[in-house]
């Protein structure tokens, strides 16, 4: 799930020129969970903009549980609101960067204002708390660390941790946070797999994490393209 937080209103207003007509898009999936761009927030944003005398032509939010970042869905939403979309000079998107770009595509290169900052990939631990557990690095190693990703839970992203700055089980960079490597150690100890920590972890292949990347998908086979090359995985065995 892509966690998002709205940009402050003054920053959003600063991107709008006088007289600019705006259509607002929201997302009924991740942004709804984050209360940054679900149906309520989208409607509220329309009211808030109109209160600031912004000409809002209309709004649309993807259905509950459906992601804005699916181009075919975004295109349907555009069609359903064709008149309002055509009347708009620009589109304010209350969703993650993926949703934002889908609107660029769905409006054939329309002028899109990001209404949110996309902060991380997260787990909805509770309705009021989203924690980051994955850094979308392209090569998962959590198998060796009991399911806890060191790139995400260690402030330095160490693969052979911990560092010497960990104190009382807390992280040197943020003493309110647990040291990721102490968490990994405790988890592996509980699982009876501490020997995993004895093996030397090789340096990460950053070519799988750095841009540029893409994914071809099919029902039985997928290919991940990155600067490390292309690799195909089949489910036929």
């Amino acid at each position, binding site marked *: 799930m892509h966690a998002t937080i709205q940009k402050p209103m003054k920053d959003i207003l600063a991107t709008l020129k006088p007289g600019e007509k705006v259509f607002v898009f929201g997302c009924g999936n991740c942004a709804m969970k984050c209360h940054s761009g679900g149906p309520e927030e989208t409607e509220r944003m329309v009211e808030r903009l109109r209160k600031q005398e912004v000409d809002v032509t209309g709004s649309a939010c993807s259905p509950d549980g459906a992601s804005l970042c699916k181009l075919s869905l975004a295109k349907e939403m555009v069609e359903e609101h064709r008149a309002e979309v055509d009347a708009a000079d620009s589109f304010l998107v209350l969703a993650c960067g993926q949703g934002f770009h889908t609107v660029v595509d769905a409006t054939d290169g329309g002028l899109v204002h990001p209404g949110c900052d996309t902060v991380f990939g997260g787990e909805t631990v509770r309705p009021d708390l989203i924690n980051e557990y994955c850094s979308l690095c392209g090569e998962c190693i959590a198998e060796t660390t009991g399911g806890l990703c060191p790139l995400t839970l260690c*402030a330095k992203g*160490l693969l*052979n941790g*911990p*560092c010497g*700055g960990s*104190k009382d089980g807390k992280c040197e960079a943020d003493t309110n946070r647990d040291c990721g490597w102490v968490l990994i*150690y405790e988890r592996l100890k509980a699982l009876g797999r501490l020997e995993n920590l004895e093996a030397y972890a090789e340096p990460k292949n950053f070519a799988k994490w750095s841009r540029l990347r893409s994914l071809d998908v099919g029902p039985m086979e997928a290919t991940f393209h990155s600067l490390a090359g292309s690799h195909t995985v089949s489910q036929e065995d």
Partner: protein
Amino acid sequence: MSRLRKALETGGFPVTSEIGPPKGTRVDHVLEEASKLKDKVAAVNVTDLQSAVMRVGSLVMCIRLKEMGVEPVLQVTCRDRNRISLQSELLSADVMGVENVLCLTGDHIVLGDHQEARPVFDLDSVQLLKAVEILNGGHDLAGHELEGAPNLFAGAVTTPEFEPMDLQLLKMKKKIDAGAKFFQTQAVYDTEKFKAFMDRVSGWNVPVMAGLVLLKSPGMAKFMNKNVAGVFVPDNLIEEIKKTPKADRKKKAAEIAARIIREVRPYCQGIHLMPLEWDEVVPDIIEQAELQ
């Protein structure tokens, strides 16, 4: 062969000291103070942008120390440079006759004075040690052959008071397997804990130099407790310094350091002093601790 290496390999119980380069180009004072220790210590460490504060680089200061007849220990961290740049730095060190290298992770960016900078950590300290070993063997990390291999003497850091201890030991063993030939520890203040630690590691037969940070003032000790990674000064020592009049603080710092050294000496293979600019106290410590 480096003087430090020889001393450690022959059980010579060497003492090393440490300097931190300044934030700016006026380096003479720091070098002057270090050069006074020329015949008193086996080598002097130069920190690598310690505390993530931008300053003059370690290698340049190491070269200047060598020119003054002081043997340097180049500290290299993983915070600011990727594997290409790190390997390059190691080759450059060898080209300039710097043999001793201490491989560290590096303090996090947020502890320093450029908090918006991007942390690198392309390698961690274990991988950096491995890189030294691979370079020494005539190849680079990507497997290419070198036109001339370095001959670096690699060390690492360990924290005797780390909790959980087992996790620290797991990492220390990994560092040894990756090529660490000696260790300098984070500051030691509790002899019992240090002894217990050394009991666990002495079987690995890699020399350990006990680290000591000079206690300059109660404020500084408390600051370190709060902000400096891996250091913990116990209350009784803070009290002892607090009770000492300011005019006598340098003497007291030397006395405390010498006392700790005498206590830990039977359990380790050398001493690493971190005088934090009180370099002039070092000869006094060496004398009081009977280390010459």
